[in-house]
């Protein structure tokens, strides 16, 4: 890639997303709140990214996401140092780098915000992986706090009635657990309101993501990775609803004015798996240098992917299906169906798969997905071997060569 491609374009500067400033303010305020929770008599709950956060909001507990923390550590390139610390503690280099960096950060208050506030209790939902169970067990031992496991049976091809009954009973157990650890009664009326806001937020987030159906796409997956923070951390709050309302307006405006995330957008790509947090800028620039925009991804849409199962009038009850049938808790063929829908919806020319050493539920099966896509749609695909946080798994020259070759194929196909 030539130097010119990497230089900042003044036109592009003008077209920067304005909501970013607001987002940063909200996230800063949120972390200040979380860090001063104890002084304000509030409880801090650590929860997994795909976990049922709404009941926590009802209880006025502040949800904190170690995975979000992992992403920040990765983005600020502090991952290797923390991962190595975890390895010194005896954790194998092959396990999830979010977990490694979080476990190490706890012991040294490391990372870009000087560590997360200590939890009063932990909520672990295994709908994203089995790793979170082990990770939260480590933290429950370290902080000596109660751990609630919200067990969402894996749905290879079906969501069984047995699983439904089991998950339903856990919602009652979850509420009882919260009443004990928070020392107050659960407010069902407030739950209705929080559920409504959660759904509203998820719909708005989907609408934001859908603005990339426009050509050119007003934002890219790289933008989505950033704006995702609120639907994860503040789902169920008015703050998230207001923010996404504003962001949606901005994106619609950009679309109307034909302002694209990538100037001269010519090729549209789909990203699969978590971002490579320490290389988002590099990857974004690299694809942009080919006039290629990553218009959609399977990752950020996971926080609104089960909207169809959620019911505004019975949020708690519908959480059973909404939280069990999420993208990572279904079979490879079910994932493939969703990808195929996205390919059509966003009209993409190729797919970029991040084979992420840290995430087996996401990565194992990608080869089969790739093969099926090639067979059924003829769509070119690229596999990048990397890791979301651990830079030692990144081989830049190899990845660059692969991207170059992949873009050549895309060019030849589309012209």
């Amino acid at each position, binding site marked *: 890639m030539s130097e010119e491609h990497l230089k900042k374009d003044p036109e592009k500067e003008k077209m920067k997303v304005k909501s970013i400033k607001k987002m940063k303010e909200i996230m800063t305020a949120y972390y200040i709140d979380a860090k001063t929770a104890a002084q304000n008599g509030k409880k801090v709950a650590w929860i997994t990214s795909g976990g049922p956060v709404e009941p926590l909001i009802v209880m006025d507990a502040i949800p904190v996401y170690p995975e979000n923390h992992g992403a920040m550590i990765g983005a600020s390139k502090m991952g290797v140092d923390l991962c190595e610390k975890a390895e010194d503690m005896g954790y194998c280099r092959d396990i*999830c780098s979010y977990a490694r960096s979080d476990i190490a950060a706890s012991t040294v208050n490391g990372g870009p915000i000087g560590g997360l506030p200590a939890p009063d209790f932990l909520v672990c939902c295994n709908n994203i992986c089995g790793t979170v*169970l082990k990770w939260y067990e480590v933290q429950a031992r370290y902080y000596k706090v109660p751990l609630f496991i919200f067990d969402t*049976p894996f749905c*290879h091809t079906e969501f069984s009635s047995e699983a439904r009954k089991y998950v339903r009973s856990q919602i009652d*157990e979850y509420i009882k657990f919260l009443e004990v650890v928070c020392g107050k009664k659960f407010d069902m009326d407030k739950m209705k309101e929080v559920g409504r806001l959660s759904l509203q937020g998820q719909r708005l987030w989907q609408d934001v993501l859908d603005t990339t159906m426009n050509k050119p796409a007003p934002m890219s997956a790289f933008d989505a990775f950033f704006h995702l923070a609120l639907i994860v951390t503040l789902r169920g709050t008015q703050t998230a609803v207001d923010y996404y309302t504003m962001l949606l307006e901005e994106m619609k405006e950009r679309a109307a004015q034909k302002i694209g995330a990538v100037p001269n957008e010519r090729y549209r790509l789909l990203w699969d798996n978590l971002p490579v947090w320490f290389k988002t800028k590099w990857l974004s620039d690299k694809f942009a240098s080919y006039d290629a925009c990553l218009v959609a991804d399977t990752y950020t849409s996971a926080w609104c992917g089960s909207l169809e199962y959620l019911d505004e009038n019975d949020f708690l009850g519908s959480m059973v299906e909404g939280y069990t049938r999420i993208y990572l808790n279904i079979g490879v063929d079910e994932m493939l169906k969703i990808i195929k829908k996205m390919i059509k919806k966003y009209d993409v020319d190729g797919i970029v798969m991040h084979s992420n*050493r840290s995430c*087996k539920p996401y990565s194992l099966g990608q080869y*089969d997905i790739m093969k099926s896509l090639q067979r059924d749609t003829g769509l070119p695909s690229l596999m990048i071997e990397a890791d979301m946080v651990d830079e030692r798994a990144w081989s830049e020259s190899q990845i660059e060569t692969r991207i170059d070759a992949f873009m050549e194929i895309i060019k030849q196909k589309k012209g």
Partner: protein
Amino acid sequence: MNTIRQFHDVINDSDGYARRLKNDSGKKILGYFCSYTPEEIIHAAGIHPLRLFGTRSAIAHADAHLQAYSCSLVRGVLEEALAGRLEFLDGAVFPHTCDSIQRLSDIWRLNLKFSFHSDVVLPVKLDTSSARQYMGDVLRKFKRELEMDLGLSITDAQLSKSIKTFNTIKRALGKIYRLRSANPGLIAGADVYALVKSAMIMDRADAAEKLTAVADQLEKTKAAGADSGKRIVLSGGLCDHADIYSIIEKSGGAVVWDDLCTGSRYFEGLVSEGGDPIEALADRFTERVVCPAKHSSITARGDGIVGIAKEHRASGVIFLLLKFCDPHSFDYPYMKEMLDREGVPSMLMEIEQDLPSEGQLSTRFEAFIEMLR
């Protein structure tokens, strides 16, 4: 012991054994991957449950489906199936354990055309009454699936009979383990390995009879000479290497017990022989020694290994962990720490299907065993 030769013959050619069993008995065979498989239900249906291990062959086919950071068990079993070496199987059963087995099930289902495929999605936590209820529900669901797909019915009487057969196997293995712990010179580690592995491969009625005979015979045998080896406990997922045992012995150690999926976790905890058989199976799965992919308390596995080390007066613990096995890797640091606190030294050995050279292994084991008191 002469009779132990037959068990080595079984494990040295488990595919051949399975083929002959199928030819001779006409039985269907279902492959399975972990000790949370409800073997008794399969067996009660007149089907032979066959545990699948990795492969000693080079990986040629599985690489097109699984990344290099998948464990050698998952890659190896898929390799065997894709290469057509498991053509005698009628299907496979996948209990939900780790993320890798979970995806192996998908890849298997999408690429292999066996007639039967079942996911037994067990609860991950085992310490609540709703999880216990779900455990029973899942086992009943699996029984229904077998009945519907294979057009048969499984009666409570058949289930109870199978439970008795498996209990006999578990009892015999437990007895052999206890005899060895009391007198480590009684039987070679590689022989015990062959007995346990055979129990997951052989016709179960046959295994029950033969293992009981071995246990009884061992009970009567006086060990040839006192044993001077340091008492070693193995901990990890599975150990599919007879060589490990003999190298440890040559290095001055004697394996006296283990916490392995292909060891004590397989046979510990009998299923109640009274009452509803499915409920009894659910109870055993809920109460048995926990695997790191399941949760019964935040210190269950650490308490478990400390308990084993104390009960069997271990001089040291060797953690044999399969490379890329996440659940075990997460548990290792705290289990080591708990052992340290009790003054039990431990070492970590990462293994794959292909072992490092014997020289390398001996050097490491010798260094460890020499420092043991």
